[in-house]
């Protein structure tokens, strides 16, 4: 991992950095100076991996999906992040960051959430470590991901609605930043994706990189080769994709495919397909690609999936897109819903709406009979049952 690595100022090529107000300077500087030393200390690594094993349930299986493979006439493996404790990959990062917060002596945790998976994963580790937790969530998402709101409350977290803008993930992120500005000394902000100021994108990618670390040895065991032809993942901010791509970045025979949410269609005006619609700029303290007007105002995104309903992508993905290392495709709301039903009926797995986007493009990439395709199944669909019952004719 050299060519695609972040530089010491937090840049991936043209993207990244830490465009923070002075109010956050001390916190961010402390993180920048300490994060690598803290997370690679042997005691930290030991505790992190122990928790991933005993608490999260890692390694998650790499499952050969026989019937899905037959349908697409290729060899499809599913990385089962849906089987993580709390139901999605998000917990890999929250375990890492809560341990980091403890090392920094922080006494209070805040987070933003879209689908509620990161909120639940944060509330979970806060319960585990006995730290107070406030989760910001857009009003729209509170309504469409109600089961996760209840779960966070069960776990003892306070859920605060974000009521500005589109009332979704971007606005929840704004509120969490405001909270951090007002409480810089005692609070750690557990960002849920590879977004935000340096070092968050790199730190979250490192915690999530366990996904591709496992895929490599699991594939070797099952196929004799560590390297697949394709790795496919959905992209909201991009943390599950960053984790699934991470240890393949320098193996350029492996095609990395990132799938964004096209909403009602890329050019429908209701979309979250960042690479198709976005331009470079500064959002949430990093230089990256995001959807904006000619005047530089952020455009409100749309996706049926709360976790992908975000106007930007993390700087690592902006860079992978820019240099062509990853290919960016998109799937519409309808295509994602079709993929949900297909996976449910073919494999007996009900995926999260976010993850379903990664499956929806299978027919578009020209897979061949002998190809090995890994799809990162980032989460399970329990939280989306309401939407499925409303939108899918059974």
């Amino acid at each position: 991992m050299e060519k695609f690595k972040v530089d010491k100022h937090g840049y991936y090529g043209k993207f990244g950095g830490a465009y923070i107000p002075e109010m956050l300077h001390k916190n961010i500087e402390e993180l920048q100076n300490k994060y690598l030393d803290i997370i690679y200390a042997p005691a930290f690594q030991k505790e992190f991996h122990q928790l991933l094993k005993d608490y999260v349930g890692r390694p998650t299986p790499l499952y050969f999906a026989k019937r899905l493979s037959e349908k697409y006439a290729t060899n499809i493996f599913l990385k089962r992040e849906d089987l993580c404790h709390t139901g999605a990959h998000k917990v890999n990062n929250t375990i890492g960051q809560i341990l980091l917060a403890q090392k920094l002596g922080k006494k209070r945790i805040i987070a933003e959430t879209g689908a509620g998976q990161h909120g639940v994963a944060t509330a979970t580790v806060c319960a585990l470590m006995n730290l107070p937790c406030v989760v910001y969530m857009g009003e729209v998402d509170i309504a469409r991901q109600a089961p996760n709101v209840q779960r966070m409350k069960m776990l003892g977290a306070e859920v605060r609605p974000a009521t500005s803008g589109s009332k979704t993930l971007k606005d929840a992120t704004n509120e969490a930043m405001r909270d951090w500005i007002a409480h810089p000394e005692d609070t750690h902000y557990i960002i849920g994706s590879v977004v935000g100021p340096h070092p968050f994108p790199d730190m979250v990618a490192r915690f999530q990189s366990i996904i591709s670390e496992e895929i490599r040895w699991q594939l070797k065991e099952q196929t004799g080769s560590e390297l697949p032809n394709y790795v496919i993942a959905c992209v909201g901010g991009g943390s599950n994709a960053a984790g699934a791509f991470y240890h393949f970045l320098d193996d350029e025979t492996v095609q990395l495919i990132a799938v964004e949410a096209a909403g009602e269609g890329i050019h429908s005006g209701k979309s979250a397909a960042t690479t198709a619609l976005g331009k470079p700029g500064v959002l949430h303290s990093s230089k990256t690609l995001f959807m904006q007007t000619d005047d530089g105002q952020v455009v409100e995104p749309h996706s049926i999936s709360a976790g992908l309903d975000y106007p930007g992508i993390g700087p690592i993905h902006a860079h992978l897109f820019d240099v062509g290392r990853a290919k960016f495709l998109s799937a519409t709301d309808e295509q994602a819903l079709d993929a949900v039903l297909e996976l449910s009926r073919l494999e007996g797995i009900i995926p999260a709406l976010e993850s379903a986007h990664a499956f929806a493009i299978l027919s578009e990439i020209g897979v061949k009979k002998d190809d090995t395709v890994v799809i990162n199944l980032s989460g399970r669909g329990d939280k989306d049952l309401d939407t499925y019952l409303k939108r899918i004719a059974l």
Partner: protein
Amino acid sequence: MTNRIQQLFKQKENNILSVFITAGYPTVEALPEILKALQSNGVDMVEIGMPFSDPTADGPVIQHSNTIAINNGMTIKLLFEQLKDIRKDIHIPLVLMGYINPALQFGFDNFLASAKDCGIDGVIIPDLPMYEYEHIYGNLFKKHDLQNIFLITPQTSNERIQKIDQISNSFIYVVSTHAITGANIDLEAQQVAYFDRIKTLNLRNPTVIGFGIKDKDTLAFAHKNANGAIIGSAFVKVLENRQNISETVADFIQQLQ
């Protein structure tokens, strides 16, 4: 060459009153009239806010004014059109304040050139950090002879404050406490030590306290502890739904005395 901001602090030194307003609020064309009213009521300097959809360092009042201003059609381009002839009427220092993204989309070089053409004296970009300023944008400020104004907070170290003082040539914006704009804060109790710490540094640049200054008492307190004070949210709030701008401004400034 001294700039308008330096001249102001040379002439008056203390009790400087600066007011923040959001361009395009409450109506799209209100700005020139507000500037005139502020000047004629004795305000020493004005910060003109450039609205942004996602102002992460601002509280609800300024956020709301940003949303309204954007919905009213305010853009950087339109702002420069409104400010084109402003120096015919306004002689007090004017500072632009806003998040970096709209300026980047306008073209940063072009943004500074246009600001200079309108007679703007300084720029405050809260999300332009010192590293990026020193390595990318600082030369553009020099090229256009515009002042970049830095913020400091209770967490900013003495060493960093001194560095900011070295690269500043106007004033230093002293954020009163850990807060976003519009916060309700107990200034007296917690902040004296912080302000005293700043005083012991003997900075070259004057200091102006902002965030949480909202009435006669908080203003007097800020004036005791720095060369000036900035009133933001409290002024933005009184402009909402007001028909008669010059009366509103006169009333507001009067009750501060």
